[in-house]
Every structure is written in C-alpha cells, then in structure tokens.
C-alpha cells in the first residue's frame, strides 16, 4: 500500500520535513503511521489529522493511495 504523508506548520518543523511517501503491507492507523515515521518524536497531544483532506481521528485506518496529513490546531481568521 502506498501512502503520501504530509506535515504542516509546527509539525513540519517537528518532523524536519514536509512529506514522506511510504509503502506498508497492512492497514495502519494515522497514529501508527506517525510512530512508524517519527519513532523518536512523541505525537503532540493536540495533533490533528486528515485523510484525503477531510478531518479524521488519529485512530482512523489509512487506505491505499491515501494522502494523510498531520498538523497542529488551526489559527486562521
């Protein structure tokens, strides 16, 4: 399964990069993918996630071909 993972705002700085592309053998949750890609960085308590540009829980399963994004609480307006 191929997944594109994107990081925004302060989480881009935490991760040290703006995106990853990974291949996984079985479905993983958003939280598990964060742990897999950032083993030495605990996910911030306030971290939000989106799959294919819609908000999801960190426990949501990520499907093949999805775009997963991690970001902090939003501060627009």
């Amino acid at each position, binding site marked *: 399964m191929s997944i594109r993972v*994107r990081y*925004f*705002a*302060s989480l881009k700085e935490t991760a040290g990069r703006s995106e990853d592309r990974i291949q996984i053998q079985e479905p993983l949750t958003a939280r598990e993918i964060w742990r897999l890609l950032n083993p030495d960085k605990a996910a911030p308590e306030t971290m939000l996630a*989106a799959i294919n*540009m*819609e*908000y999801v829980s960190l426990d949501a399963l990520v499907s093949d071909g999805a775009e997963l*994004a991690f*970001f*902090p*609480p*939003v*501060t*627009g*307006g």
Partner: protein
Amino acid sequence: MSIILCEQPIEPWKELEAYQKNSTLLKGKYGACNIFTGVMRDFNQGDTVESMYLEHYPGMTELQLKHIAEQGMRQWSVLDCLIMHRVGAVAPNDTLVLVACWAVHRGDAFDACRFIMETLKTQAPFWKKETLATGRTRWVEKNSEGYQ
C-alpha cells in the same frame, strides 16, 4: 457562494461592492448583508508583532471553507456567501479575512455570518507564524475565543 484565497492584499470594501454589483443572484432579492473583516494587529500576547506568515493546506483549506459555507447556508436562509482569506506574508493592518452573507432578512445574515466566522476559526486549515520586533519567530498556538 465564492471562496477565494489571496496572496495579495484584500481591499474588502472594493471586493464587496464589485461582488454585489456583479451578482445577478442578489439583485433586488436581498434585504440584509452582514460583513465581518478580520485585520492583523501589531501586537499579540504582550509582544510587538512586525509581520506574519499564513500557512495553509492547498486543496483542504478551500474544501473545508466550502463545507463551512454550505453548512451556514443550509442552517440559515442565506442567498449568497463570500469568503476571502489571505495566505502567505502579511503585515499589520492587512485584512486577513472577509466573510459576507446576504439574506432576505437581517437575522439570517447576522447568524450565518457569525457561524461561518467562528467555524472558520476552528476548522479551516490555516496557521499563523509571527515575527516579533525582536526578530524571534513563533507559531500562534491557538485562536482566542469569540466571546471574552
């Protein structure tokens, strides 16, 4: 409904005048227009702020703004809605956001505009990074409450 992200300064009153003039949907039909503009301050949390960068998530930001506007227009009787939001580098006194709702009567225009603005503050993927007068940069961690 129109959702517009702008890299260049927004001139809200010119934009509104042009939008109303060009809208065949609104001509003769609306009795109320409620407008909100949000503007960048030169201070925050006790510090002088010199400039700011507004990051967004291209594609998701527009999609979430569309969801928010549609929800407001479903919940209240709104004829049309305009949302404009700056992205990229901004300076104090720049208009950051414009929300306008047109309705037959004022109640729907007031309430829908307020709902859209408050929901935008918590749901639309934008992130502010401030540059202070000292040269230090910092991410704004959360928005202020709408009622204080």
